[in-house]
């Protein structure tokens, strides 16, 4: 159908904008440079002449990959709409034959694709580093970890794009960063925590556990670094479904918000 194709073309045109923006800002190169500065001394170490020790490098590298993916994902996604409004480029944009929903999807997809391309770069660097250190990782686990990470980026960018339509940019960044970091670190323990609380405080804890985005689902660093087998198919599919549903819900909300946005 022509309408669909046109729609897709417009969404992709909008998405390309975010990717071009990210890579022209050199945020990614700065991240890579920082990572290199952090990792070079680590790589140079030789512990007691024991060769082939790589897991600590793998762990630190993946940690950096995660931190940078969050920073870049949030940075890109959270500035999509505020930048349009601040510079008033939203007006010529809206005057073109695009639907608001297309703009929203384009912005989200742009943030996602921009971060995902940066992520590809990061994982390639990670693999090169492991090659250098003689690390033996299961390629299936790494591929899975990468895909899960992409799902994470999708959810994160959807969250930041939605947040940018309700909150001020700094509040949005704070909320999203805290939610992402908090859930990555404590998401798994939330249920246990809620179980141990007295009823009055357990209810909010359960609510957070039930509703907050469980970012820790997407974090397979442990499996990569410590040589565990890949996650089994049913669980992988469940995680993908979770990410897709959550993202879809956020985007539906964002669509509502954007259509109501005062201009």
């Amino acid at each position, binding site marked *: 159908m022509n309408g669909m194709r046109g729609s897709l073309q417009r969404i992709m045109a909008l998405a390309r904008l975010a990717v071009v923006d990210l890579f022209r*800002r050199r*945020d990614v190169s700065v991240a890579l440079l920082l990572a290199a500065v952090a990792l070079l001394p680590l790589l140079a*170490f030789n*512990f*007691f*002449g*024991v060769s*082939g*020790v*790589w*897991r*600590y490098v793998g762990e630190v590298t993946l940690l950096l990959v995660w*931190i940078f993916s*969050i*920073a*870049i994902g*949030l*940075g890109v996604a*959270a*500035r999509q709409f*505020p*930048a349009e409004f*601040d*510079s008033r480029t939203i007006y010529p944009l809206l005057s073109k034959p695009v639907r608001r929903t297309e703009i929203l999807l384009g912005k989200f997809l742009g943030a996602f694709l921009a971060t995902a391309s940066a992520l590809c770069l990061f994982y390639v660097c990670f693999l090169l580093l492991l090659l250098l250190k003689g690390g*033996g990782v299961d390629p299936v686990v790494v591929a899975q970890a990468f895909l899960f990470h992409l799902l994470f980026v999708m959810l994160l960018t959807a969250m930041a794009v939605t947040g940018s339509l309700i909150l001020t*940019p*700094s509040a949005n*960044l*704070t909320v999203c*960063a*805290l939610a992402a*970091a*908090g859930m990555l*670190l404590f998401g*798994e323990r939330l*249920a*246990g925590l*809620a*179980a*141990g609380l007295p009823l009055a405080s*357990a209810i909010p804890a*359960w609510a957070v*556990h*039930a509703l907050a985005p*469980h970012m*820790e*689902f997407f974090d397979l660093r*442990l*499996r990569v*670094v*410590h*040589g*565990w087998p890949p*996650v*089994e198919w*049913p*669980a992988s599919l*469940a*995680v993908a479904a*979770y990410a897709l549903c959550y993202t879809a819900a956020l985007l539906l909300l964002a669509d509502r918000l954007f259509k109501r946005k005062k201009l």
Partner: protein
Amino acid sequence: MRPNGTNGTLLCVALLAASAVLASWLGRQGGVRGNPRDGRQADVMALVFGEARKVVSGGLYDRADLYFHGGIQAAADNCAEQAAEGRGGALAAAAAGSAAHADEDGHAETGLVGERWDLWSRLNRRIHPTEDRHASGVRELKEVVPWLWAAAAADPHNTLAYGVGAYWLARELGRVDEALRFIGEGIRNNPDSCELEFCRGELLYLRPRGKRDPATMKAFSAALRKWTPEQFDRQEEARMCRRNILMYLATLHEQAGGHEAAKKCLRELLRMVPDHSPAIRMLGEIEAAGH
């Protein structure tokens, strides 16, 4: 536009760093497992930085423990179990050769809702490995070493890191010389530590012809000299250490022909533990031989 974006990114990184620090701080409720005795840090600066270093060092040591367990927090999260394993948790327990390591599944009971309905927790259990696993084989065991090195580098008074590190190097990775160098560094940094001296003695003892090396005897003698009950967390540990030193010394003296010295050690040992059968047997043998 441009400065905004950069600020945002910076803010994010800062926030993340802050929350990571906070998390690791909260996550390690156990506190510092490093070296509890350290009365020497007199001035405030040293005290403050000393504390920070201890925290970092303790965290790095925990990391080593984690690596030993395939990256998973061992079930020994609660204090009681930790106590049972002695200072330093499972890693130290393994280092001390105690194979018995009580393992429970760390499943948190989910009370109110119940595991059945808590989909997220069930999913988490499938995503994140929970089975208990111990590192085995050189390929895995050597991964522990960098963290022990780092723990010692972060806090040179973390005697546990030195001791356990030397153990891994010597026993599991076969690098006795590196281990001795490492423990030597530990002793230089902690000249009063009985444990490190004892550890060095054991390493020397295990070398080929180590039993005839006068350095071995010197190390155990130094350990005995440096032994004070205050160095240990628990009384029982202190006594255990002294017993072991005495037994090693008795063996070494006996081999070198120092029967009187050997008997002296054995008698002290028997005063501490009257029914210590190897000591009784050995003393009997020496006396039977007419010395």
